[in-house]
């Protein structure tokens, strides 16, 4: 009944999210996101930092890119990575998602409450 768990269920029910979960299931990829949260970086520098081959890092970045967590851009001979929209300000987005969930929920509750009020006004002896 907690929000968090219910949110997980909402997310798990959509195929697009499988990509995100798969992307985040790897330690290196989570590390890359953390790193990009501090500063943009080239694939080469990420490969160095995580002691990997360039090819290996390219694969990880491709997975993150497909999930929308990372955006890359090639300038000259260097491909630079930065956080995608999904990786930005996760907490603010999380709060906004909650607000929308509750807004939807409470709008529905408003209708129920209106019905209850009407019932009371129409037939006070019913309850």
């Amino acid at each position: 009944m907690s929000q968090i768990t219910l949110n997980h269920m909402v997310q798990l029910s959509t195929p697009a999210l499988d990509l995100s979960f798969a992307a985040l299931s790897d330690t290196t990829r989570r590390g890359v996101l953390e790193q990009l949260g501090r500063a943009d970086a080239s694939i080469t520098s990420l490969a160095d930092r995580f002691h990997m081959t360039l090819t290996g890092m390219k694969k990880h970045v491709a997975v993150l890119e497909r999930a929308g967590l990372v955006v890359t851009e090639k300038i000259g001979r260097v491909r630079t990575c930065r956080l995608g929209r999904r990786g930005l300000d996760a907490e603010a987005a999380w709060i906004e998602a909650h607000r929308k969930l509750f807004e939807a929920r409470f709008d529905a509750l408003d209708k129920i409450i209106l019905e209850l009020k009407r019932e009371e006004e129409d037939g006070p002896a019913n309850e």
Partner: protein
Amino acid sequence: MALQTSDRTKVERKTDRELVVTRLFDAAPRIVFKAWSNAELFRKWWVPKGAGITLLNCEMDVRTGGKYKLEFAHGDGSMAFYGKYLDVTPNERIVWTNDEGDEEGAVTTVTFEDKGGKTLLTFHELYPSKQALDEAMEGSAAGLPTQLDQLDELLPTIGG
């Protein structure tokens, strides 16, 4: 894509361990409390329509020491959410535990405050640790854009 937002529902991470949601309802606490404590009414609004989730079963014994169990369709099977009511004061407050999962869960407190015939509702979740709330946030962050889009879609279906 334009979404009509209202400021009626406020959500904030009040401290490291607390999530707080507030909203004002145009009815006396007695009525709002009823919609929260009667299973038949509760199941009509708790799960937003179109969220891809079906509430299969909803049992609630809303009194101090009572238990609840909500069962949702999940994949091919089902998933149960359950816990205990730690404190129920009619028309004033409901406190319950969230016992799903392996670890200690959050404690939810809902209060109904009379504001001249209206009700200020406060939904408060207290997590056992900062880490628990952080993890919950991190875990759900990945899917947020999709979730937001889903909610955008479902909001008009609820309105009226």
